[in-house]
């Protein structure tokens, strides 16, 4: 990786948007960085963790986003610069603190980066976090390029200190996870000693006075925004169409203009400070055209705020027509792409454009539709969650009372789909499965006879499920919690957590024992290895039949990808063809048709299952379940 800490001002390197943000924070002299992993934000603190020692920083994976923000804020209160990063859902978790912090103010520069995931590619939901800036009266930056990601972060720290306010940077997947050229600047040499000035008070109270003060700060930010280098215009004086855009919309708009060859007909107003709006700057440019198209991800945030501004000034500006999400020229859900912007402009300017010959499109579509099979997501080969859901499926069927599974966020969310045998029935926020189970576990008195099962990952448990478990004990709820302990925050990139014994910077950390916590919260706790399918089924069955209180079954088995990193392979697995029953009565392809591990393949020629050695990781579970004992496993 181009090291984000290299001391090479003036050098151009290839950086991921998140890395550029991290580099910007380093150039700004950040000292404390905290986050909870969340796609697409994880590499910000992840990258800083790698250089923490070298650069003399404190970097931590906090237990959840609210605590992470509090940790970074403490640095700010002590006069140091703090950085906190999270995904959209994380901001929801941290929002209680943030919406008090805006009123209490802070001291050293404090920057909160929220990386949204338009279209929810790796999220439970789709959400536009920019609203928090408006809600909290906080300054908001939206980087449109990788260089901007770095520059804005630096500016954000300065602005934050000038105003005594946290500053929000809102990135999206296509900026955070994309890479591009970034020219590095200098790294700071000096540093401040932290001190909590005891005469200072950090509190939102009295609310009205502080709210007024906050508005004044925002007005100052507005003035500064008028001169910000992140807001600029590219185009003529009288464009046929004015495109107003921010963030990822900028690069897509440029691409659309080039493809349609309309650079001289269209002007692009790119805004980098999207809250508060640089009002005079925006109004000046609105005057340039009668037709205005808003290009942004995900909600019509910019669109509505500019329309509000226009409404207050419409007498001056005269009649304008606005296009964007309200007019459906830009879809009001999902992410942006060059095609979306191209189509909108095509439409508004009545241009005909073909990115490739129509007959090629037709031919390619036809071929693909005919022979290309779908490729759905699933658990990795060797994933303990596949084994867990297999056992859950069998146990619930044998139990016979229509039990159901409540879940939440992590790799195991794939339990909703075919890879997890469609066992998981609900999915919302971190720890919600356990919270819902608290409620379902009380419905027995109304006649609910179905056993209630919740699943929760280890990292998710520390993040949010602990209060729910305590609640279950306190309020007397009855359910079975399957705690999936794969020793990793896997989905987001295998970050350590309070159960793995390692800190963000690779140091040793005390382990907060899951079993002990569950016991303290009054649960009956057992531990099982999901790779031992028979045991796991029996244990789940037995616990399902226990009608009293909360039971926690810890499914303890390391994530397959983590094992692979440490080159820990359990078995070498092979199919004994002579024993394989294949499609005949007695098997009918249990391993490939029903268990569906990608490490297995079905050979149509021989009519036998076989192992795909490019994929199989040697967990041996297929060997356990084969009805003909035709899959052999040998210790690796």
């Amino acid at each position: 990786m181009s090291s984000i800490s290299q001391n090479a001002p003036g050098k151009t390197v290839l950086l991921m948007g998140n890395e550029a943000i991290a580099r910007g924070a380093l150039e700004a002299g950040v000292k404390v960085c905290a986050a909870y992993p969340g796609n697409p934000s994880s590499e910000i603190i992840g990258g800083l963790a790698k250089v923490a020692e070298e650069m003399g920083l404190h970097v931590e994976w906090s237990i959840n986003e609210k605590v992470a923000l509090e940790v970074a804020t403490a640095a700010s209160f002590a006069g140091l610069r703090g950085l906190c990063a999270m995904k959209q859902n994380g901001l929801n978790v941290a929002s209680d603190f943030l919406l008090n912090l805006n009123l209490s103010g802070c001291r050293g520069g404090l920057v909160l980066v929220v990386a949204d995931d338009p279209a929810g590619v790796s999220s439970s939901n789709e959400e536009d976090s920019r609203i928090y800036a408006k809600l909290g009266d906080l300054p908001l930056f939206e980087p449109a390029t990788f260089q901007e990601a770095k520059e804005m972060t630096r500016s954000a720290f300065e602005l934050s200190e000038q105003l005594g306010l946290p500053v929000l940077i809102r990135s999206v997947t296509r900026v955070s996870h994309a890479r591009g050229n970034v020219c590095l600047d200098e790294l700071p040499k000096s540093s401040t000693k932290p001190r909590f000035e005891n005469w200072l008070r950090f509190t939102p109270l009295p609310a009205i006075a502080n709210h007024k003060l906050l508005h004044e700060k925002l007005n100052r930010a507005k003035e500064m925004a008028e001169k910000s280098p992140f807001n600029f215009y590219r185009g003529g004086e009288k464009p046929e169409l004015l495109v107003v855009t921010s963030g990822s919309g900028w690069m897509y708009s440029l691409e659309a203009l080039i493809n349609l060859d309309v650079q001289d007909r269209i002007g692009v107003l790119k805004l980098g400070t999207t809250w508060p709006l640089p009002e005079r700057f925006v109004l000046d440019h609105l005057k340039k055209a009668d037709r205005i198209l808003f290009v942004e991800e995900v909600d019509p945030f910019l669109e509505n705020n500019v329309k509000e501004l226009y409404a207050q000034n419409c007498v001056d500006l005269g009649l304008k027509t606005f296009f964007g999400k309200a007019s459906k020229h830009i879809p009001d859900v999902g992410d942006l792409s060059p095609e979306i912007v191209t189509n909108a402009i095509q439409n508004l300017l009545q241009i005909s454009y073909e990115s490739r010959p129509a007959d090629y499109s037709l031919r390619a579509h036809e071929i693909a539709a005919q022979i290309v099979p779908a490729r759905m997501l699933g658990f990795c080969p060797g994933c303990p969650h596949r084994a867990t859901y297999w056992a859950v499926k069998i146990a619930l069927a044998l139990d016979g009372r229509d039990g159901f599974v409540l879940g939440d966020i992590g790799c195991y969310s794939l339990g909703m789909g075919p890879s997890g045998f469609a066992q998981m029935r609900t999915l919302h926020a971190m720890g919600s499965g356990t919270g819902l189970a608290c409620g379902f576990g009380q419905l027995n008195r109304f006649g609910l006879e179905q056993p209630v099962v919740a699943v929760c990952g280890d990292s998710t448990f520390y993040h949010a499920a602990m209060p729910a478990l305590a609640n279950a004990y306190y309020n007397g709820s009855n359910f079975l919690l399957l705690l999936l302990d794969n020793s990793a925050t896997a989905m987001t990139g295998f970050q350590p957590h309070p159960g793995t014994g390692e800190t963000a910077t690779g140091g040793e950390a005390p382990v907060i024992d899951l079993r002990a916590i569950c016991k303290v919260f009054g649960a009956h706790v057992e531990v099982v290895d999901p790779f031992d399918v028979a045991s796991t089924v029996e244990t789940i069955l037995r616990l399902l039949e226990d009608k009293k209180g909360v039971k926690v079954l810890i499914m303890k088995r390391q994530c397959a990808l983590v094992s692979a990193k440490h080159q820990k392979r359990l078995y070498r697995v092979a199919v004994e063809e002579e024993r394989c029953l294949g499609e005949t009565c007695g098997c009918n392809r249990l391993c490939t048709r029903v268990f569906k591990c990608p490490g297995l393949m079905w050979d149509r020629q021989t009519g036998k299952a076989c192992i795909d050695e490019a994929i199989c990781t040697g967990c041996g579970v297929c060997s356990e379940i084969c009805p003909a004992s035709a899959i052999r496993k040998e210790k690796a």
Partner: protein
Amino acid sequence: MTTTQTASDNKGLKALEQKVLGSNLCAACGACLSLCPYLSSRKGRVVKLDNCNLDEGRCFAYCPRTEVDLDKIYSKIFGKGYEEIELGPVRKIMMARARDPIWRKKAQTGGVVSSLIDFALRKGIIQAGVLTPRDGDLLPQGKILKSRKGILSCAGSSYVSGPTLEALNRGPWKGEERIGIVGLPCQVLAVARMKTSTLEKKTPIDRVDLVIGLFCTWALDYKPFTAFLHERVGGHSIKKLNITPPPERILEVTAGGKLHQVPVDEIRSFIRPSCRVCLDMTAELSDISVGTVEGKEGWNTVIARTAVGEDLLKEAKKTGVIETRPLPKDNLDHLKEASLLKKRRAIDALNEKGGIEKAYFTLSANLVKRILSEAPENAK
């Protein structure tokens, strides 16, 4: 091998699920278990674990509640068509009891079944028995047993049926053992289906040389029945059950060191629905069928149906394992009446459900007419 056939043509798990498991017709005999990973059982109930899309399978072929052509089966087993609707094919019928008190002590009545199995094992006619012991809480489970102790553990009635035949399918088997099975009429029918099926045999059904069937009027569904009992006896394990003879008909329950009494009428709701459409009271497809003798405590009614059965009884009597007496005419008549009554009730129940043409078995119209005319009235 995905099917293009309609649901009604399917002869595999799809049809089994629709016609039997999902229609409350399952007898929990165990014939479909341990054949494949898609069926299992828990607490006396058969559970489908996953879908199977084969057009045809052994689960359907062995099930005693799917497409049973009675005439064909009886022909294949006995070498002649089905005519004897009163008690099935009978070579010899008698009263009998075990001589050795060790069998009579644990038995429900005369100890004939246990002593015969033990005799067959000692003589080397069979090397293993598939019998049905019960666990500590009275759950019946099929087991492969070879010892006296094992046989004794199975003695006595529990009125609850369990998937005995799973043990036959599951093994483990060494590969040469001749096997004897003791089963209820549904299980005996399943064994006959297994023997006469044309599908590839992957279980040791061809080594089953001896089938002893038990008389049966109905059997109880373990899960709800034991839940009911546990509530009545305060959660203790059930040690012994006994239904007293008429006219009282009380279920005596020994649990937690006490003897509880429950009127039999209170447990009728736990009778398996499958039993209500069962035609067979005397396990007509066995080598030997054994039941009680009404009014004669300590004696069994024994029917020898095949040469194998007849020979075994002869030998057992000769060597003093059992003693026999003629069955009094009254008892014989009464037995025939009861057997026909069960057939009649089954036909009535099926007629209520949509007609005998839709039944799981085919029986000639002539035989149906005979049953209806010969069975006593007042079917309850």
